[in-house]
């Protein structure tokens, strides 16, 4: 020791090493930095990736709905998605569900961190304090909404709870109803405090909040029991949905895009139909752009793209686009005969939204007549058929296209709510409130726009890609408009309008028909797609993903598993 102290005059300082290139929490409390924390919270909207695509929900809402197969190389390629698609292979310990749960709480953590800092500022210190608080609560509402429809019962943590208490919050502290109330409370606050418009296009606004509030209330209106059965529909909630959607509609801020295609083309992003969208970017100083990583598996396998052939429309979905001689959907008979290839698309008639949503061999890809989709562009046609999804992709020479081999993506925004959704929320509320006749013009407005959206669906010679025939509902003329019929029309309309956009399964669960619908889908589809041969939806279980086993373990048993699991 003597020698030691001899040689080390200032030993106490030797071990003082300061962290480098980082900041401490205290340094982030200034208005300037708190404002930056709001940006960090927004950035979580698009911080998913192909394995946890919560930005578009295609892996949870589309491939579980009968609208799409998983796609890719085979059932083992991202096998967790195969478990989701077939339901009976789903397990409590799948990494994907756990990762999705985790990443959504990560996003909520960013919101709560920013909100804490914002709350600690005064209006004098920061004039935009209340607006930012409202934006943050809008974001939090969104992330909890996703958790809610995926897992049903989740622990609710807001900025009032100190971090040290997080481990004490159970997923069953709140009832199903109370959890919805928490989510709608955030949207209510946002709707109340947000300005009608914001100079930054990416920020939420008053009417975006009202639209999302309407969406959340519509889900909440279908009251479920503890076993996920829909037992009743709350009329007051539906009434509120109706008034909120009317406020949004009457605000004059939004309208349907002239062409359905505009919603899926980068040059029209942030158009009149976009109520709230994830703002993606590229050439922004990051290596791959802050781009749409959640869809990065969903491009065709050709030389222009190269990977990975996920998210394949089911044969059932393609069949569903067939229309009757009157230009209306074939509710009962659409699935009797396959429309698969070649002349099938000429001899039958179709809703034009087919060629906006589904890439079909021999048809132009993504509105380019000279760019013909080939069977060879699909990944494993012997397993997942010959169709691919198209709404999420862009052309290879699109300015938004971003390649980061082996994956590819784009900076094209992804709409979380578009105006057509608001219209159909309204129609659904009207029908379930018994005012089904009032829903006719609302649904028809969406159909009319679809009918007017064929100008881009042409071949090189200018002729139509498929044989389109679509008409509006004309009660007494081409249909008998009862409440039952209206309900069916609305549900079919949602399927056509939002095919492959990621929320179909959650519609089915909301309506309480998931088990019946999917098992009858499997009964037929398994003869067409052998990977579905053992698929089965277990009622009173598969409406929700299980609470990830990891989380139950980490909570030391505080979290309770979902019913049926």
């Amino acid at each position: 020791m003597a020698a030691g102290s001899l040689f080390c005059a200032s030993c106490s300082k030797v071990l003082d090493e300061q962290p480098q290139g980082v900041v401490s929490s205290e340094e982030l409390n200034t208005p300037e930095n708190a404002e930056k924390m709001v940006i960090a919270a927004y950035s979580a909207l698009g911080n998913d990736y192909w394995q946890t695509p919560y930005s578009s929900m295609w892996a949870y809402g589309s491939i579980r709905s009968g609208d799409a197969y998983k796609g890719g190389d085979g059932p083992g390629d991202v096998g967790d998605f195969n478990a989701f698609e077939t339901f009976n292979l789903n397990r409590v310990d799948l990494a994907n569900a756990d990762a999705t749960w985790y990443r959504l709480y990560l996003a909520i953590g960013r919101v709560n961190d920013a909100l804490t800092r914002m709350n600690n500022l005064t209006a004098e210190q920061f004039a935009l304090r209340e607006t930012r608080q409202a934006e943050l609560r809008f974001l939090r509402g969104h992330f909890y909404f996703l958790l809610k429809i995926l897992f049903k019962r989740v622990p609710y943590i807001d900025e009032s709870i100190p971090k040290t208490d997080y481990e004490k919050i159970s997923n069953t502290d709140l009832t199903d109803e109370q959890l919805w109330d928490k989510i709608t409370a955030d949207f209510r606050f946002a709707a109340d405090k947000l300005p009608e418009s914001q100079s930054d296009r990416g920020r939420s606004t008053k009417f975006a909040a009202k639209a999302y509030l309407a969406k959340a209330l519509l889900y909440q209106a279908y009251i479920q029991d503890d076993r996920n059965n829909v037992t009743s529909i709350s009329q007051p909630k539906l009434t509120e949905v109706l008034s909120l959607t009317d406020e949004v509609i009457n605000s004059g801020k939004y309208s349907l895009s002239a062409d359905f295609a505009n919603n899926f083309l980068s040059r029209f992003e942030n158009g009149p139909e976009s109520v709230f969208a994830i703002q993606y970017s590229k050439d922004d100083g990051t290596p791959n752009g802050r781009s749409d990583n959640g869809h990065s598996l969903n491009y065709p396998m050709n030389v222009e793209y190269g990977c990975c052939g996920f998210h394949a429309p089911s044969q059932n979905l393609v069949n569903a686009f067939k229309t009757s001689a009157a230009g209306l959907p074939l509710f009962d008979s659409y699935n009797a005969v396959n429309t698969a290839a070649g002349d099938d698309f000429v001899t039958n008639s179709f809703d034009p939204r087919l060629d906006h949503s589904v890439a079909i061999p021999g048809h132009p890809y993504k509105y380019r007549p000279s760019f013909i989709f080939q069977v060879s562009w699909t990944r494993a046609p012997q397993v997942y058929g010959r169709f691919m999804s198209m709404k999420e992709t862009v052309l290879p020479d699109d300015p938004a296209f971003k390649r980061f081999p082996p994956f590819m993506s784009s900076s094209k925004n992804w709409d979380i709510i578009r105006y057509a959704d608001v219209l159909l929320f309204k129609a659904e509320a009207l029908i379930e409130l018994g005012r089904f006749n009032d829903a006719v013009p609302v649904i028809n407005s969406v159909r009319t726009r679809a009918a007017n959206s064929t100008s881009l669906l042409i071949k090189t010679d200018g002729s139509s890609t498929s044989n389109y025939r679509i008409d509006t509902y004309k009660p007494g003329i081409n249909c008998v408009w009862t409440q039952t019929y209206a309900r069916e029309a609305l549900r079919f309309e949602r399927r056509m309008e939002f095919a492959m956009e990621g929320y179909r399964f959650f519609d089915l669960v909301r309506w309480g028909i998931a088990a019946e619908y999917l098992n009858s889908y499997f009964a037929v589809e398994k003869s067409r797609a052998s990977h579905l041969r053992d698929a089965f939806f277990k009622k009173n279980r598969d409406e929700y993903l299980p609470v990830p086993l990891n989380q139950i373990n980490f909570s030391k048993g505080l979290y309770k598993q979902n019913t049926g699991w």
Partner: protein
Amino acid sequence: MMKKVIFYCCLMLMAALNSVAQTRTVNGTVTDQQNNPMEGVSVGVAETGKATQTDAKGKFSIQAEPGQTLKFSYVGAKLYTVRVGTNATVNAQLDLTNSLDDVVVTGYQKERKKDLTGAVAVVNVKDIKDIPLGNPVKALQGRVPGVQITADGSPNGAASVRIRGIGTLGNNDPLYVIDGIPTKRGLQELNQNDIESIQVLKDASSATIYGSRAANGVIIVTTKRAKAGYSRIDFDASTSLQFYTSKLKTLNAEERGRAYWQAAVNDRSDPNFNQIYQYDWNNNFDNPMLNRVIIPEFIDGAKTMRSANTDWFDEISQQSILQSYNLSIANGTEKGNSLFSFSYYDSKGIIKETRGKKLTGRVNTDYTLLNGKLKIGENFSGTYMKDVLIPTADVTGLSQIVFSIVPVYTINGGWGGPAAGMADRQNPVRLIEDNKQNYNNFWRVFGNAYAELQLIPNLLLRTSYAIDYNGNYARTLRKSYTSGFLSDPSNAVNTLSNYDGNRIWQNTLSYAIKKDKHQADFLIGQEQINTIYQGFSGTRQGLALENLDYAYLDAGSTLKDNAGSGTSSALLSYFAKANYSYNDRYLLSATIRRDGSSRFGKENQFGYFPAFSAGWRLSEEKFIKETLPVFSDLKFRYGWGKNGNQEIANNATYTLYSAVYGTNAVGNYDAGTAYDISGANTGQLPSGFALIQQGNNTLRWEETAQHNVGIDFALFKNELSGSVDYFIKKTSDILINPAYLAVIGEGGSRFANGASMQNKGIEFLLSWSKQLNKDLNITLTGNASSYSNKVTKLPAEILTSYPGNGTDKNILGRPVTSIFGYVADGIFKSVEEVNNHAAQPGKDVGRIRYKDLNGDGTIDALDRDYIGNSAPNWLYGFNTSINYKNFDFSFFLQGVQGSDVTNTYKGLTDFASLAPGANFGNRTLQAFTPQNSGSTIPALTLVDRNNEGRTSTYFIESGSYLKLRNIQIGYNLQPVLKNLKVQRARIYLQASNVFTIKDKSYTATDPENPGNAYPIPLITTLGMSVSF
């Protein structure tokens, strides 16, 4: 007066003449007791300081006068002195019976081997000297009991070294001490020829002196120095050929087509619904018969890729040449010694274009001043390495995956690549060709300057200041390409530079005392280590030309990106050690070390690491000497000690936010904090901060306590010798960065002291050496070791992070290397068997049956159990060396027994469904069909409905193997060349990795290398060593 002068002159002349007459050349031979000539013995004249060394024949010649004293000294032998008489020949026989007098470096000091009380293994450096593996540690594989070394065959691959098993959940690398300087880097940057000795400190009582970072064991390397009277030039050269002997058998173009057909008809789906192959068959699913596989002329619609029959393993591999040269010049006098060495190592790998080059230089010098009271010296080495950056793991993996029908090149000379129906995988030849211009430059300077001052007799003060700096520089060009349906029109240049720096200051004071039968020495010391890391990189895209001479950052026009980071840490330690022996019989040793690390919280920065050991040399006791004279040595040892581990992030105690902006997230989430809030789509984005970690200022040292008992023995005058060691090693407060409850959100990552584990093991070493006759000497050395590991404590909430189901089956009480999964119970052979089995989604004839372990009638996640352990039960090695006249011959066998490996290749060699877009292995041709129902390979199918890719015993195979690691034969040319003043000359022929005996159950090629790591080559070497 004049007379007087003349008288004196005459006298002096006479004296001179007299001395001319009397000083003469004394010649002689030095041998050991078995009359083996001894090379390298220092021979000195005590009176004049003249010195020389014996040659390979044990011969020396020196100028000496009668009456003067000749000293013969040799490490491990008793000093021998003899007075020069009138005879011109002086022969000496040195007493080597006691190699126990060998001096062993044990940490800031040296001890005699016979005094050791800890588990210290001494490596026989001579055995490995000529094995050209590029990394001395690789050559140690199997040679030291209790040390497991795993390495691949890359030209410059690092090796993984585990001393006494996996002892912690974090970093398990041992500490290396090179010439007294501690470092965590391995030995791959060292010139193998520079190594004088290697010792491995395995137990805590010996390693504790290195306190911090010694918990995984310590490997001590001492480099060569010149010695007084030592003047020599050594030159070594060798050339080797390397061969790729472990190629996996894949399907050729036609066979791949047949396998697909079989899978399709098994599924009763149309085989012609396929994008490459067409089939002429009987269209009868009940009795399918294939007439012909129709291979298309082209595999792509554009007709640029003509169907081929490529053997990708052949395309990517080569026989390669490895060259190694070493020159060292040593010169020693009484006043100072110097050694200079230079080496060049150039290994072209067996994967085309792979290459690792290494240049090393070393200067070790010391000067003796103040009548030997002060010694000042230095060790300095510089290393430069240049490695071609070929993504070899991708290349070997892709050679399995890419279809044989894919041509290497298109008809236009472009790259062949995947076509419709194939996986999105790169042409491996393109990966080689497009990366061959890229290489990494690595440099390292390592060395110290030291001074040793003898304050009073036996009290030595030593100070040493060392630097260990290493860094990388690489400028890499990523080329654009089109290869099948894969393409990337962009190119990019990346330049990176970084360095790690360590500065180490050590001060020790040692004192030795010997009185009567008591012998003791004491050491106190202090050590301070500062480390720093700095790095940055830049990238630009949009290069007009794609050649490396052009590809500088300035030449890039778009997508400029850069990155940089830095970190630092410090260690401050004090230590003391005392050794005591009574009558060479009773040995005691005690150590205490106090380590402070900047990585821990203020209150817990310092940890105490004590150790204690004792030995009893029974062979010195009268009753043994009388009753069991056969024992030339017998010693019992016991030691206990504690070591520390601090392998966590430098700033783990702090809660930190970071401006992340955006990350380079390919196939992963982007943790960025920037967002295009304005909807501009492009340009600089506003950005926030992300919480990256939660601090924990209660972090403290991870501790490993270890008991070791051992016996050293030697019989029949040391003809047979060996040792047995048994240890129990308990690691507690293991530093973990556990997964956490998701609601904690971002930056929940937090280091904590949380887990415990235990290793128990036993190690054997046995050596037999005998001079059978004048010309023949044989030495056999065998070693074996075994250990078992179990996790004894883990926080409940992180149990699921380890193999197990998180509830009733968990890793506690099991080896951390356990494998958890389903039990595959053969293949369903009939509908009846299928019907009688539990509910198993996807079960069918020809499919794998999984065991219903919990007997609930359903195969689900609850039917998983522990199905294997990837750690071996036994590691062993056996070396034989024979000397006959001028020949020497040796071979070395090494093996592991009882390990389970997950054969990841099996997903491709046995299945058509797990990666339908890949080529398969040729085992698929033997898969189950109703006609071939005896097969153990499940029926081919296109759709894996039975979830057969799940972790199951189907993929677990025996990893046991026995390899002939090395065999060599050498011939001593010195007698032929002695007229050329050659002291030593040897030529040799050797081969490494000659053959492998593996368990039948292992279905791939090399169980030592079960993944896509660089294949281990067969190496044949011709080499020579000469000394002047």
